[in-house]
């Protein structure tokens, strides 16, 4: 049996909306094996972003158990979650979420700096990723000086630099044109082939097709592989 990176059992999440309880996730069971490239496919309002936030340890859940790389997230405290986000998860956001005032290099090495590494060591560690993503010429640029595709590559570089056990991508091609989107997805495939575990949230079936496994989420319930 392959090693599980994500193991969720009976995850429930609800919000209070004007006196009414909105059940966003209804006893979700979801698991991802190491090295898998999984797409979570769902329409707007299906709960996929909530699921992604919970997987990324950025949001709490009401009940259920969640093990990330064997770590019981349901028991973790805020301080532990900070460490887990930094060491276990590489985030790739739809809108890149780069810090506009920092250069490309400063953005990329930020997770390593957060970990307590010094600037020089961090830059050295990121060199390989930077070259692989073709960003070597752009390191001193600001995000505003880059194209959408380049920005997303910077975001991917930032996610990879910390050598996480899970790459978590939220609509990674949502803000890109078709070519740039395809370029990013090819990169994901390459990263998958290199052994990275990727979970990608998308509403687009064509994007989901790039993943080796697709999971549908509808009204807060997860259904295994539609394909």
């Amino acid at each position, binding site marked *: 049996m392959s090693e599980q990176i994500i193991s969720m059992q009976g995850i429930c999440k609800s919000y209070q909306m004007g006196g009414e309880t909105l059940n966003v996730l209804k006893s979700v069971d979801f698991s991802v094996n190491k090295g898998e490239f999984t797409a979570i496919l769902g329409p707007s309002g299906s709960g996929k972003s909530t699921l992604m936030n919970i997987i990324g340890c950025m949001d709490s859940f009401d009940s259920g158990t969640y093990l990330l790389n064997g770590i019981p997230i349901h028991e973790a405290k805020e301080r532990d979650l900070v460490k887990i*986000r930094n060491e276990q998860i590489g985030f790739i*956001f739809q809108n890149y*979420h780069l810090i506009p005032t920092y250069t490309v290099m*400063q953005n990329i090495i930020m997770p390593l700096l957060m*970990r307590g590494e010094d600037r020089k060591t961090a830059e050295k560690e990121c060199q390989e990723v930077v070259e692989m993503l073709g960003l070597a010429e752009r390191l001193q640029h600001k995000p505003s000086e880059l194209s959408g595709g380049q920005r997303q590559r910077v975001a991917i570089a930032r996610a990879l630099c910390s050598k996480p056990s899970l790459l978590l991508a939220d609509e990674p091609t949502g803000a890109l044109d078709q070519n740039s989107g395809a370029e990013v997805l090819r990169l994901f495939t390459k990263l998958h082939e290199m052994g990275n575990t990727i979970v990608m949230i998308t509403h687009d079936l064509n994007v989901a097709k790039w993943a080796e496994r697709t999971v549908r989420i509808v009204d807060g319930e997860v259904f295994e592989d539609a394909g």
Partner: protein
Amino acid sequence: MRFSEILHLVRLNLTQNKFKVLLTSIGIIVGAATIVIVIAIGRGGKADVAEQFRNLNAGAIDISYEQAQSSGFSFGGGGEGMSFPGGGNMPDFSGGNFTPPSGGDFIPPSGGERPERGSGEISGRSGFFSGFGEMFGGMFGGDGETKNTQKITLTTDDMDDLATYVPGLSETTISYTTKQDIYGGNIEETESYTVAGTLSDYADLSNLSLLFGEYLTDADNENKSKVCVLGYSAAKAIFGSPEDAYDSLVYIDDRPYTVAGVLAEQGTVEAGISADEAIFIPYATGIKYLTGSDISPTITVIAADVNDIQTVIENVKAVLASSYPDAEFTISDAGSKMEAANKSNETLTLMLIAMASIVFVIGGIGIMNVLFVSVKERTKEIGILKAIGGSRKDILLEFLLEACCISMIGGVLGVLVSFLVSPVISTFSIRMEMSVTGAVLALCFSLVTGTVFGFYPAWKASKLVPVEALASE
């Protein structure tokens, strides 16, 4: 995250928002500049006081006598005409015999003669008149005794008595001043000058230094020589320059006096004789040729230990009381005057510092507001940092350091501004003594303001939930 990296991020954020930093720190700039200027003014005031009192020895005690005014109808004094004695006593009609209605001892009225021990006193505190007397006593001075009704002229004998009977004195001297008409040198018409009759030790006791010649000697006093020492301004006014004045003749009350010396410039003084404008002559010479016995001299005694001044004053009072039982002498010590002047100066400085503190609080509130806006603006950035592993401590420290840096920048600029502004303020005849202490204090105030007022926004930033921060627009 390493502290050096947080500092690096802070520097990055500040350098990319220079104008915002400047605007944010305006309150602190004003506050810091105010602190430095206020302290400089305070120090300047203190230096002024020190300068104005520099002709006074800290242990100096001046003793003088003022006769009470007694023309016609008067309260609280004896002498000629009708008078009411001081509080607590029965009315006294001087020159006539008056018996108190009840309970009082009959005391012969005082009539302007030199008092003997107990003379001029009327006691009798019972009954209606007692209260009446107390009321008037409270209103018009006196202490249940008839004071200063006689003409008393302090003499060198009194000075010798004090030197002999008061322990703890290092030196004593006596002096007086009088206004006299002067001519000589370049003066075409007579002019009125202050002439001071002094002994030879006056210059040392008053810290006077000479530019030319020498001060008056004991021999000058004994021989009643017609010599004088001119103050710096007087010498310039009369002869054009101190050099020309030396060894020249100046006419005081139509008698020629040889200028034996000229004093160095002393500057404005708050107490004692203003030496620059004065002409100093031997004590006995003045009495013989100018004033006769019609003078009110001041005896100056120097306490050997400034901490014993109060004891010395009590002893001086006791010795004088044995010679002049009914007289109340005016006794003032230089230390108290200096202390009072310094105290009022310190009060003013404290008040100004309080005002500067208010400016700081306002500046601090400004910083807090801007930081709140900054946190709002950078909510997404905070969310990103938290998503990629930024801890609460890192975020708190980053924003707090930003606040501290902004206020320190404000502090440094404020200190610079104060140094630029001080020459302008000095043109308004306000003396300023800029100091490192003032600058350091201003920087400390700035830092504290930044830390205190920056903490809350920084804490709010650190508490942001990453998913909510990322979702913010």
